[in-house]
């Protein structure tokens, strides 16, 4: 059986892994290649690296860390942040990443999803979206690292992204990011019920049950978290055992 994936997320700024709350109050954690190797050895199924300031400062992902990570690990990993062209995809994949995630640039230029998917295959193209709930009980997509609201509805954007060729959807909840109150189950459930590609939950993990809930109640394919792993509050080995004991298909 295909397993659910446990995915540590490493936000990279100026070549260092950092972590904040609600996309602010950033603290330094470690170097991407050292933390990447550590997680790979601990049993992580996949890693995601985001250059978190890239879009805002309108600069390209500083790609040096990608090659270093590729040299250090033998599990798949995805890189995002500041990706805005086919050339960016080519660069990142050449350096050894398996997938590339696009966020703000996909909102501005949806055709990029299509072009990248045709050129590299849907499995390489991850549509990542930062979302926030509004008063009307739906969710808006935000761009530029959560700083700018758009009119896009998160569920519709997920559907559109898959139509254009995205092979995976990552849903980052701005409300829940770093808050440790659990994933946004309601939104995730709506998205997993309408798209036929893997959906990854992101933002809000505080304890092991939150991971279980995302799989059990929202049927997500992967569960992504940062602070609970970086600060050692949840050990990947313990988490995997916990999920397996609860009869979730997991790689031990």
């Amino acid at each position, binding site marked *: *059986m295909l397993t659910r*994936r446990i995915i540590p997320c490493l936000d990279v700024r100026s070549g260092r892994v950092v972590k904040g709350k609600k996309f602010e109050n950033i603290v330094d954690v470690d170097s991407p290649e050292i933390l990447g190797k550590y997680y790979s050895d601990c049993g992580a199924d996949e890693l995601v690296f985001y250059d978190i300031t890239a879009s805002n400062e309108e600069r390209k992902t500083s790609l040096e860390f990608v090659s270093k990570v*590729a040299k250090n690990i*033998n599990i798949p990993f995805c890189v995002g942040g500041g990706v805005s062209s086919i050339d960016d995809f080519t660069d990142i*994949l050449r*350096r050894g990443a398996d997938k590339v995630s696009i966020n703000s640039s996909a909102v501005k230029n949806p055709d990029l999803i299509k072009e990248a998917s045709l050129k590299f*295959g849907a499995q390489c193209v991850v549509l990542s979206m930062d979302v926030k709930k509004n008063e009307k009980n739906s969710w808006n997509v935000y761009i530029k690292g959560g700083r700018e609201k758009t009119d896009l509805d998160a569920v519709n954007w997920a559907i559109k992204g898959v139509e254009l060729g995205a*092979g995976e959807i990552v849903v980052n909840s701005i409300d829940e990011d770093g808050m440790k109150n659990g994933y946004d189950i309601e939104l995730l459930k709506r998205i997993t019920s309408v798209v036929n590609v*893997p959906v990854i939950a992101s933002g809000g993990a505080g304890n092991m049950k939150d991971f279980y809930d995302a799989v059990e109640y929202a049927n997500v394919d992967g569960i992504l978290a940062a602070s609970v792993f970086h600060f050692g509050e949840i050990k990947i080995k313990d988490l995997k055992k916990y999920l397996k004991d609860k009869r979730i298909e997991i*790689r031990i």
Partner: protein
Amino acid sequence: MNIIIDYGLGNLDSISRAFKMVGVETKISNNIDEINNANSIILPGVGAFRDAINSLKNMELIPVIKEHVDKGKFLIGICLGMQLLYEKSYENGEYEGLGFIKGNVKKLDIDLKVPHMGWNNIKFNKNDEILKYINEDDYVYFVHSYYVNSSNEELVAYTDYGTTIPSIVRKNNIYGIQFHPEKSSEVGANILKAYGEMIK
């Protein structure tokens, strides 16, 4: 020497590094003389079947690969590289493959999500040296939308995902691996290690 054939597709460094980690030196090359002298060749591949086979054709690599196989030397095809070993692929059309193994490549027509992407377990169909350091039901990393459809004769290991997917095949000294051993952590490393011992 083990040559990883460079025909312009995909990142070959990860395969080269994965072999190196288990003590097997490889060289990435598309030089015909070097391939001629290789004791083993590794045929990687990501992307579309048509592009891959055309690229092999244009670089005049097909005769040299066939000659290598005819001499009874080892060849391992990984992912799309495995699919290339078969007679024909129906990926966006109909394309002729290298034809070393009887059978076709067709799209995963299943109720589950396609591509088949992520960690899945493998079941053993028969004993083979390549399985020496791994166990049945170990997890390996897959990314593919097409799979090979052939007789059971070559089947070494398989994976269930809506249908039975051949995950490791062997015909004489030719191996095909549908998943990515270079991305499959310890289990993948142990498969490459076993292969490394065979080609010594």
